[in-house]
């Protein structure tokens, strides 16, 4: 009887352990993320005439805001594709390299992360202005016949964002490639697969999770970036983050700013889930049983 009760007590205690382990993290998130997000939603559901969804109606009823949302998502997707195309081979080579310089090279790729976004943007401004290095180099190479200004354009924003987010992609993929057993590729090749096929069928498929994680990381950071679009893009590269800043800080229209933030959050969440399901899901279907 007593022993049984003790056993039940121990089980209850054991059940408590995960809760206790989770508690600090949940608490921090509840205070610093969920609560502010909830108050943001509450603010977004208010208007001059009282509570309601006026702010959302204003957004969705106006093609101008659709354009900003579209520009933001287009920017995020372009930056993600660029970092994936540049980062995948880099990460693969670094992970497979036997050279003792590989570690140093990996460290070097993370250097852009050590510089503040504002300082880095000012650096790009120096390069992007009409008499900057980019324009002069292209002129000297004969690729353009007149000085070109990349400053205050979306192209400039995308280049600058891709540069700073590339390390995150490389680091994520590097870890995944490292964890894939090289013998699996050899096994595929010994069974007759050409190296390219082995790479595609085995390595890249196993790295799927890393590709999803890296892409989502880069995408979500790109579309929420503020300093780079604001400093490099200027007035014409209006994206969601700069629109939110303008509404909350410059026009003091907090309800509409909050609605913009909520819409951005929901859209990103939806796209991320869909993207993850697409890549992971397809893999599962094709995976040999």
């Amino acid at each position, binding site marked *: 009887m007593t022993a049984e009760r003790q056993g039940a007590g121990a089980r209850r205690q054991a059940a408590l352990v995960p809760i206790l382990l989770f508690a600090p993290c949940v608490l921090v998130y509840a205070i610093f993320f969920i609560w502010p997000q909830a108050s943001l939603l509450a603010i977004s559901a208010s208007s001059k005439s009282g509570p309601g969804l006026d702010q959302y109606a204003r957004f969705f009823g106006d093609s101008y805001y659709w354009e900003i949302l579209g520009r933001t998502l287009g920017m995020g997707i372009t930056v993600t594709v660029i970092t994936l195309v540049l980062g995948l081979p880099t990460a693969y080579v670094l992970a497979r390299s036997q050279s003792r310089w590989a570690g140093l090279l990996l460290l070097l790729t993370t250097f852009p992360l050590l510089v503040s976004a504002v300082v880095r943007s000012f650096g790009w401004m120096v390069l992007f202005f009409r008499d900057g290095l980019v324009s002069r180099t292209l002129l000297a190479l004969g690729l353009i016949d007149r000085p070109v200004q990349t400053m205050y354009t979306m192209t400039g924003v995308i280049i600058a964002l891709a540069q700073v987010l590339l390390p995150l992609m490389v680091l994520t993929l590097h870890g995944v490639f490292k964890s894939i057993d090289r013998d699996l590729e050899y096994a595929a090749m010994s069974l007759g697969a050409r190296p390219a096929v082995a790479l595609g069928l085995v390595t890249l498929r196993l790295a799927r999770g890393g590709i999803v994680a890296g892409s989502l990381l880069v995408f979500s950071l790109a579309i929420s970036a503020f300093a780079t679009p604001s400093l490099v893009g200027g007035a014409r590269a209006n994206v969601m983050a700069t629109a939110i800043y303008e509404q909350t*800080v410059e026009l003091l229209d907090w309800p509409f700013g909050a609605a913009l933030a909520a819409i951005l959050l929901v859209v990103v969440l939806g796209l991320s889930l869909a993207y993850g399901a697409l890549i992971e899901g397809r893999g599962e279907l094709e995976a040999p049983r």
Partner: protein
Amino acid sequence: MAAYTPDRRQILAALAASATTPFAASSGFAQAPSFSGRKLVSSGFGGSTMDIIQSAIFTPFDKQSGAASTQVPMQSAAALARMKAEAGNPQIDMFQFSGGQEAYAKEEGLTQPLTGVSRLGKIPAGLKDPDGQWVTWAVIAEGIVYRKDKIATPPTSYKDFLKPEYRGHVAFPTITNGYGMDFLVMLAKAFGGGEDNIEPGFTAMKQIKSETIFKAASDLPTLFGQGDIWIMPYDTGNTFKIQQSGLPVAFATPQEGSPAVFITACIAKGAKNADVANAAIDAMLKPEAQIEIARTMRWTASNPETKLPADLAGEVPAVDKLAQLDRGKINAMRAAWTDRWNREIAR
């Protein structure tokens, strides 16, 4: 018995202090109350402007009063947002604005009356709040900044921005920059409109919408430095800064008048160091401080008792020579015009 000794000493000290106070107040040089050990936190404009204000105003004030003043860099719009977010429990005692935000702050009940600013009475009526909630301590004259080596005849009007020979060489700030808003209103005035009729402003600006649009004053030196920007609407202070960097730029006062930007100061409601802030604002209105600001930044003095030395007087327009925009009307239309600008000019 011994336990009473400190008390007696304190009483004696208090007596001595009360005896010397009338003397100190009448003696002139020690009129600022002592704030030794006290702190003052003010918003500041950041960059070299903030450093100059620190050394022209706050450092002498600290030396005289014993307070320790710091400025927290934030642009006016961000400062107002901070003021609003911290309403009731302000972490910043004193705010400096350059975009008319003080009127909004007062309207929202975020400010308190300036009770200890003895020089408030010297400031002309148009430069302070009728209820004494804020005061203009300096004025910046806006106008036309141009490259002397590219434009031989000094521009005279806001209409000059549309001249075909300047196409591709014009720059102007975004509407959220403050000067961008004034540029829109002055263009409207130049073409027969104004605060009540903004249409001509938008019509004129549409003709130069493909020119360079920048966001911050930090882009100015680069824009002028690379040579393809010849003319833009900006102010005396920044013209002076660019001149100091060695570029051949000059400031021209447009015939429509130079819009004036009020640099104002106000105290957050419930500020912990409101008494120190009052004394600091009083120090800002001192003629010596205002001359120093004119000398180091080419900002116009708001206290009419300030007598600028002859060499400075030619470079800094006097406060009564400036055109004043109806900030109340502009603020009321700000959101609508910004929205329209975003759609029609920046797109």
